[in-house]
């Protein structure tokens, strides 16, 4: 398998981006794909390891060496078959996954790892290009009906798997369009929405029924779910974390999701009914140094912000992998996203103390303090402010991107479901079954905010359990054991 000396002959080459100057003028994806023969070369760098740590690190259990080899062999269709056997939506993960697989890649010990994520994207895009990805409705139906609540990656994956097992699946989405955070959370410049649409079209053709604008428990009584033999809740972990600082009620302090969703709707040509928020010509401060924060930075720059500043309460991570997170574990290291490259001032170990309004009650500035973390062995690190480091930052827009605290409680309360100590819906990682036997839950709603790749994985695994619950056995695939454990 693979080209034995490929890793010695070829260097890692990933896709490049069109220039910052050009790309901030629009909201389209801005990657420059590699030529096919270059991608095939990249596939040949795979060493076909005796233990593919990549597969262990991938929450989906993608058969990475196997599809790499197929790419190297120019057998793209076979590669697609292998990729699809563990991953319903490689077009999402191929664009958006932080790729723990690449961090666990054995070649990464000595050289830059294989471009696994990009290979994935190339495989699936070749599939769409060549018309290889078409609907495969099940050959028979079981007569069982399953409701999936939520159309994010977890819900969609669960729905497709359950449909494949022959069950009749209905997906409920409270928004006006399908995809959950993929649709309205992630900016178009990272995921153009046609990518979602073309996949949904296939799912529909396979026989899945989608119902938008239905908010179960709000405009759709939960009792109506009784007509389903099983229910899978994939509602996500949508409660945003608040910033409990003085003046948090001032106008101009906005949750990132509100800001990003508006722009996504605007891009889709959908009217925005609430007040529109723009970063144009403003000094923007994005609080939170994660992916959402990064998305806010990219969007603000596209709006034409005067300045963009980013705060992160944690220390600046090292540029390279550090000793405490050795290979193959997920490294704590500085991540500079494409949005960061588009322009922003990044600040670490900084905490916001107070928001300051102008006379009209609009945000004018905020006050911060530098902090440090006091670490005692066996105890949780404690935050301590450093005296005399207060600073005033003039700003007109603050975007709060500090993550999510957990799922909404509408469904758990109405359905009588237990939640765990982190307010997630309670179900085990292997069974996905809630305390109400026919109700299952998967994705962020079960595990708390996480990656798309985990959402798809949970959706798939939960589907198998639902199938087993309904039929007494299941032929649906599972990723099997072997998740790479933590550091």
């Amino acid at each position, binding site marked *: 398998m693979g080209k034995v000396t490929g890793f010695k002959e070829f260097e890692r080459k990933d896709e490049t981006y069109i220039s910052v100057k050009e790309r901030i003028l629009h909201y389209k994806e801005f990657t420059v794909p590699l030529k096919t023969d270059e991608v095939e070369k990249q596939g040949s760098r795979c060493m076909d390891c005796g233990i593919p740590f990549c597969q*262990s690190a991938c929450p989906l259990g993608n058969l990475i060496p196997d599809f790499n080899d197929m790419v190297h062999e120019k057998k793209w269709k076979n590669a697609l078959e292998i990729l699809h056997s563990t991953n319903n939506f490689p077009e999402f993960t191929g664009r958006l996954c932080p790729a723990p697989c690449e961090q666990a890649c054995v070649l990464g010990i000595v050289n830059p790892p294989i471009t696994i994520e990009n290979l994935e994207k190339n495989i699936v895009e070749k599939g769409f290009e060549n018309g290889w990805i078409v609907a495969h409705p099940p050959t028979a139906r079981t007569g069982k009906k399953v409701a999936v609540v939520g159309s994010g990656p977890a819900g969609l994956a669960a729905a497709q798997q359950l449909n494949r097992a022959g069950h009749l699946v209905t997906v409920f989405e409270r928004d006006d369009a399908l995809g959950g955070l993929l649709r309205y959370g992630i900016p178009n410049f990272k995921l153009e929405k046609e990518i979602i649409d073309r996949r949904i079209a296939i799912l529909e053709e396979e026989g899945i029924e989608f119902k938008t604008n239905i908010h179960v428990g709000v405009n759709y009584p939960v009792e109506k779910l009784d007509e389903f033999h099983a229910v899978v809740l994939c509602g996500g972990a949508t409660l945003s974390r608040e910033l409990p600082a003085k003046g948090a009620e001032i106008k101009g302090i906005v949750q990132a999701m509100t800001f990003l969703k508006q722009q996504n709707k605007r891009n889709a040509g959908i009217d925005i009914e609430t007040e529109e928020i723009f970063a144009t010509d403003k000094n923007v401060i994005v609080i939170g140094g994660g992916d959402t924060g990064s998305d806010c930075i990219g969007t603000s720059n596209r709006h034409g912000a005067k300045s963009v500043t980013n705060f992160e309460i944690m220390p600046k991570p090292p540029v390279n992998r550090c000793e405490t997170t050795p290979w193959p574990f997920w490294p704590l290291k500085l991540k500079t996203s494409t949005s960061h490259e588009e322009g922003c001032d990044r600040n670490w170990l900084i905490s916001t103390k107070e928001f300051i309004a102008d006379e009209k009650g609009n945000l004018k500035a905020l006050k911060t303090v530098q902090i440090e973390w006091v670490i005692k062995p066996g105890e949780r690190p404690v935050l301590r402010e450093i005296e005399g480091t207060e600073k005033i930052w003039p700003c007109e827009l603050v975007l709060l991107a500090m993550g999510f605290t957990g799922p909404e409680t509408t469904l758990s309360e109405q359905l009588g479901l237990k939640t765990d100590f982190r307010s997630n819906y309670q179900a085990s990682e292997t069974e996905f079954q809630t305390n109400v036997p026919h109700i299952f839950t998967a994705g962020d709603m079960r595990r708390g905010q996480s990656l798309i790749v985990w959402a798809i994985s949970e959706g798939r695994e939960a589907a198998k359990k639902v199938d087993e619950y309904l039929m007494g056995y299941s032929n649906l695939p599972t990723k099997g054991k072997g998740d790479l454990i933590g550091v």
Partner: protein
Amino acid sequence: MEKQGLYLPEFERDNCGAGFICNLKGEKSNKIIHDALEILIKLEHRGAVSSDGKTGDGAGILIDIPHEFFVKNTTFDLPKPKEYAVGMVFLSQNENQLNFFKNCLETEIKNQGLAVLGWRKVPVNKTHLGTIAAKNEPAIEQIFIGKNRLPLTENQFNAKLFAARKIAEHAVENSKLSDRKKFYLPSLSTTTLIYKGLLIPEDIRNYYTDLSNPDLVTRLALVHQRFSTNTFPSWDLAQPFRYMCHNGEINTLRGNINRMKAREELMKSPIFGDDIKKLFPIILDGKSDSACMDMVVELLLMTDRTLPEVMMMMVPEAWEKDPAMIDEKKAFYEYNSCIMEPWDGPASIPFTDGNYIGALLDRNGLRPSRYTVTKDGNVVMSSETGVLDIKPENVVHHGRLEPGKMFLVDMNAGRIINDEEIKQKIVSEKPYRKWLNKNLLPLADIPYTGNDSPKEEIDLVARQKIFGYTIEEINTIITPMATGGKEAIGSMGNDTPLAVLSDEPQLLFNYFKQLFAQVTNPPLDGIREEIVTDFSLAIGGDRNIFDISDQQCKKLKIQNPVISNADIDKLKSFKHPDFKSVSISTLYDITKGLNGIEAALKDMVKQAYKAVSEGCNIVILSDRNVNEHYAPIPILLSCSYIGSQLSKMGQRSSFGIVIESAEPREPHHFATLFGYGASAINPYMINEIIRQQIEDEEIIGISAEKGIQNFNKAIAQGVLKIMNKIGISTLHSYRASQIFEILGLSSAFTEEYFPNTPSRIEGIGLYDIEKEIFLRHRSAFPPIKIEGTLPLNIGGDYRWRRNGERHMFNPTTVSKLQQAVRTNSYESYEVYAADINEQSKKLMTLRGMFEFNNLDPIPLEEVEPWTEIVKRFKTGAMSYGSISQEAHENLAIAMNRIGGKSNSGEGGENKNRFRKDLNGDSRNSAIKQVASGRFGVSTNYLTNAKEIQIKMAQGAKPGEGGQLPADKVLPWIAECRSSTPYVGLISPPPHHDIYSIEDLAQLIFDLKNANREARINVKLVSKVGVGTIAAGVAKAKADVILISGYDGGTGASPLTSLRHAGLPWELGIAEAQQTLVLNNLRNRVVLECDGQLKTGRDVAIACLLGAEEFGFATAPLVASGCIMMRKCHLNTCPVGIATQDPELRKNFKGTPEHVINFMYFVAKELRKIMASLGFRTINEMVGQSQKINVNKAIEHAKAKGLDLSPILYQPKTHKPLHNTESQNHELENVLDFDILRMGHPAIYRKEKMFLEFPIKNTDRTVGAIVSNELSKIYGDNGLPEDTLNLKFKGSAGQSFGAFATKGLTMQVDGNTNDYLGKSLSGAKLIIKKPDEATFASDENIIVGNVSLYGATNGEAYINGIAGERFCVRNSGAIAVVEGVGDHGCEYMTGGKVVVLGKTGRNFAAGMSGGIAYVYDEKQKFRNGLCNMEMVAFDPIFEADEKELKQLIKNHFKYTNSDLAYRILDDWENSFSNFVKVMPTEYKKALMRLEMENNIKTATV
């Protein structure tokens, strides 16, 4: 001794010394007896003594019936010689039983119409018996039987005696009397008489006082002494047997016995009439291989065949591929192959019927047999030369028995008949070729008339699922075979669960483990020594063995019995009066489950019985046409069951089994099917898969036919290799030989379906097997086809995959272990160890099923410190070459720092590592390995060892050799291995100086001479019978015995070899411990264990089962950075471990601390366990298996049936359970001490000296101790040339000049035995015909087999012919010799050899380096004797000529050789007769080196 614990008596093995002496002139004397016994005494180093120091493994002597002696010493009248028979009878000491036995015998003699003339008590002197022998001593009498005035010919009389004895034996056996096993007749004959017993050779004549009586005279005497692997020998198994004795081992015994049993169905003979049924079984139960063979020889002598003919039939020479053999002889062998399969294995067989005395050597020539004919008419033959003092001037001829050849003396005619003459006479007696032409039909000659096989209704993918195919299997196993005709290569050890512990449905094949040769017999090299192998089979019904007619060869001959779909169609549709086939389906109704499968099996037997009764002689078992309702019975089960059931029904001999199955795909699968009786196998699904692969362009560039042919060829080679592992050369004798051990099947199941195959720990039965079939079958027919899944499972046996088979080294364990050692974190180690140890839920190993028991905690501080414990730790043998210098030295430094031991592996070691580094670290590996390639083994290498390990087998691939491809033999690797850069290196499967246990004892002795301070360690691989082998090795005086598990690592091996040979160490170490303790040998040796040891718990279990030292290989490598790429064989290891690529080597990040941390963690975990169990020291803990019990909490369904109590068995004894004393190597009488004493000025002051000594064959390994002392002083420089000149007169013992270093010149005027100049390290050896001798040097043998094996440097001038395998693996020595036997210069990698006379066959096989010049006067050499696979005949350039001439001049100077003189005298003419043998790879390498040198000089 009875079966107990893991010890099974049937695995006793023996090897021996044997010989005979006879007088051609027919002169009788008592001296012959004494001379013959003298031979045995001189061969005593080839025998063994039990722990009582007195009981030998058995010895005996066969002589003429001493008529005059008996006339004098009996009270009754005796007829004329040959008119009566004498029987030597072993009886019970209990008078009542004794009388009963005598009565039985007398009754049967009378029933045959013969008369008992009387009995004579044989006088014995018991004072010489050892305690063990005395306990079993029988009463011994002689019976005299007359013809009772019947007009009987000699043959008729013999037949009656035979019948009487056989029937009496059965009667006694059926009597159930307690001493029935003692009843035994060593001989019953009109011509010969045997005295034998559990005696050491000296004591035979002391015990049997008859033998010292001067009246007792004979013309001939055949003697034998036994070296058995264990100490449970018995009186009756002492040799000689009635017609023969045997030095060797019959590997195919089980098959031979089964086939003989089947033949009984058809036996008919007018001489026995109705009595014939009473003779059965011909082969009695529970006898040794030699005894069984003798019983068949006896029977065949009753079929009107002569003794030489019988021997030719049972032990045929390698006729199949010999272009030089005359057709008549080939026809004889081919004809007889239709009647009898070879009794295959290494064997030197002296035989006699009183009229003829002779000997025969097996086709491989793996046993030494030398003979001397004297002017006064004596012929002396024995395993060694020089056993009797014969004056040189009295010698007519020194000869040796050649492979496959016979040596015969006609006592009545008083002459020697040579091989050609005897055989010519025998083969021309019948028109064998005509018979064959008429009746033997090659399958290839049958026309193909189109496809008759029924079409499959189910698509291929579904059927693949039913038969459990995975994508991995197709891509990594099948495709490479179809593409390249060879098996795919892999590396690292197997860390997946045993079949019985796997959660994945397993094929039945996976429960069978191949047995392999180690110590007691050698594995073969079927690739380099292909001429002795044969893979063809003949199918069809057998006939009455008493018939010698054309009917016998009505058989179908198949050249490669792995056959294509077209071939099976031929078999099905072929119409012929002699052949009729029937197809029997092996499917069962899946809905009926277990009952369904049982019913189907019974029904198959019924169908087969009926068909065979109606004249079918080909039974095709077919699993075609599976569907939703019908699932396949494992084909191996069907095959074995049909065979064993029809055998029970008395119908097995009239048909052959042909398999048509989708199941077999790996060589192992095919090997098991052949092993359980299949005669041809059609893997029809493989044919389909290959077609599909070609259609899908997975395989390109070949046609489907070619792909299938390639696959079939690859399988044939793979099976051949499996056969060779156990030392079997022909498929004909492998068939039905059942050479497997079952692991994980219940005894109820095996007794029913696989009778006679050992299965020691129970396991699952048909119920669970059916469940596994059901699971596979169900997966093929899902109610709804799930989209988005792969058609087949991805696999994961050879590489880790989620959803695939579980591996112990997986992402979690590797990453946690590396984290632990790098950050010195015991917490991380605990995560790692827990993952490996906590196996109750995910059981992977047998030790996983154990839990600690009988805890008796003590404070942790009382346990010996970790620093003491790690001294017992070793790292595994990994050669420099297989791993990088960085990785290799890292292990050495780490182990030296903590006082443990690292192992050099088989790659030599750079001498600059022998000195300490400036910082105090030492890169010197404490253990130096000696393996079959002998790479880098020199006196200096051995001198720098603390322990020397003889690698008998390797866990990953026991019984196989190895190979280091040319491009990996970089200059720095070549230097350590004393070989030429860029010349590929091959390790042969066998050590060419260990074909038997006595040879191992010799090598141990050699190495002990080479370094008296070093412990000698013998590495064995766990298998059934390893305990008895270990006992033998302990008796051979090893200091340490290592038992390796089957799952150890390797740098390269065929993928499928990694999994199917050998057993887990739990079984091996326990069996070794139990057997050694039972034999009171345990205290003499240190027992070591390795094979995937990973944690302190692993070590604790190994210790409780009997181990006191522990080896780790994979785990310390992982600690050093290995991430189990399993790419060691590709030189692409990205972390710089298993690679020589300078760029990749830079990636090595391991440090000694990493390895030390690992050892520390393991010791720490171990100490906690020791404290909880209550052991303060390892010594207290060894063998205390009562501290283990089988974990009751096992959840694993399949594991529930296992019974591990035999592993935990403790022999009831108070003998020590661990090593308490050291071996007595008896070095004190070695000649070298005299040399050291007298040669002091030369050795210490480099003064030139000349010394002279007499020498005899018991002076073994002369020169090694002197060289060891020189190495200690001068390293590998030795002394200046010709400083110490030693001259010896007589016959030198084995290993003369072994390891001899520079500055020594050692001359023998006389001759030498085997292993002359073994690992020669620079000395000059001169072996010269004595001046007084009158024979021609180039027609007489002067040195034995395997001379200059692994020589690295030095010169040898040999004034005569050398035996087989001259200069095997020579890498630097220069030798001139006047003739060589078969396989000369095999595996040679360097040096120069000049052969001035005849060569045998297969010269230069596997020769990758060095140059040979052969004087080929008769052009025989260049026309067929040289194996041209790796060499070419090159022109002799001027420089060559000069060198050649100089070498011959030297030869003349040193030996005064007539031949050398003649050649030199007429140089112009003689020069043109020389052929230069040049390895092609060597030539290229020399050119490359020259180029590199030029570049170097140019840049300088």
